[in-house]
């Protein structure tokens, strides 16, 4: 007996990470929290308590963000889409296990800020 997917002309040979990431999010595909940008920094505030039952991916995110890490970098390092990290973050923020840098920290282009970037790049 053939598996149903073998008869499906639309089935991809390599469906890639289609199912798994959104299993991680229990089907949620978007986060209600505005103001979290690709370059917002996520920082772990404290470890979860015993009764906070997190998913393995959330634990990995907490471990990674002990060093403050941008949303997009967390996605790349955990090999999950940005949208999935956003959803995982929702729970962690609800439990106050992480903080996210405010939108004002993500590159407001005023002269002092640009000058700091120029000086920094000259130095490296």
């Amino acid at each position, binding site marked *: 007996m053939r598996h149903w997917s073998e008869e499906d002309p*639309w089935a991809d040979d390599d469906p*890639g*990470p*289609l199912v798994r*990431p959104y299993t991680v999010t229990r089907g949620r595909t978007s986060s209600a929290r505005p103001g979290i*940008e*690709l*370059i*917002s*920094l996520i*920082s772990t505030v404290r470890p979860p308590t015993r009764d906070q039952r997190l998913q393995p991916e959330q634990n*990995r995110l907490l*471990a*990674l963000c002990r*060093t*403050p890490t*941008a949303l*997009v*970098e967390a*996605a*790349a*390092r*955990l*090999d999950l*889409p*940005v*949208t999935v990290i956003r959803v995982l973050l929702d729970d962690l923020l609800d439990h106050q296990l992480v*903080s996210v*840098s*405010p939108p004002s*920290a*993500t*590159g407001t*282009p*005023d*002269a002092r*800020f*640009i*000058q*700091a*970037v*120029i000086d*920094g*790049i*000259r*130095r*490296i």
Partner: protein
Amino acid sequence: MAFAESDPGRTALAPDAATAKILVAGGFGVGKTTLVGAISETEPLRTEELITEASVGVDDLAGVERKTTTTVAMDFGRITLSQALVVYLFGAPGQDRFWFMWDDLSRGALGAVVLADTRRLESCFPSVDFFEHRGIPFAIGVNCFDGRCEEDEEEIRAALDLAPDVPLVLCDARDRESVKRVLLALLEHVMRGLAAEAAATW
């Protein structure tokens, strides 16, 4: 692609560090990821986003009931300037059908480097149009492969129909110092723009 989850070599950022974003645009295969890699303190990182059929837009899906998804890859790198300041460089997908992603990506960006290859200059026209229309400051980096930089700047300017204030820098996308010069040309252009804006306001 496997990445280590810890990265002991990096400067630890403060949780409230300021983050900046610079885009790297240009046609397919022009060297965007090479440029990012030349200056990033990490190997270029990649994140893949799943885009549903509805967002893709230009694909002709008439009569096709089933939803399809497309994966769009974004390569990026990080430059930690201090504990309080980090710059992310994003090399974004160059194909026309992914332009919708650019609105998201360019929000909050300081500006963009448009990487050009003189052998197919036209491949960077869409990027130039995009940033011009949205008023996002940009600089052109002309990638001179194999150190071959005999191009005439004025000819390239004319071909791209660039405004006189847009910086154009001949560069080697593999060379860190060369990439620094392109980024500085862009940022100094952004500064001049802010100064002009302030002068107009007062």
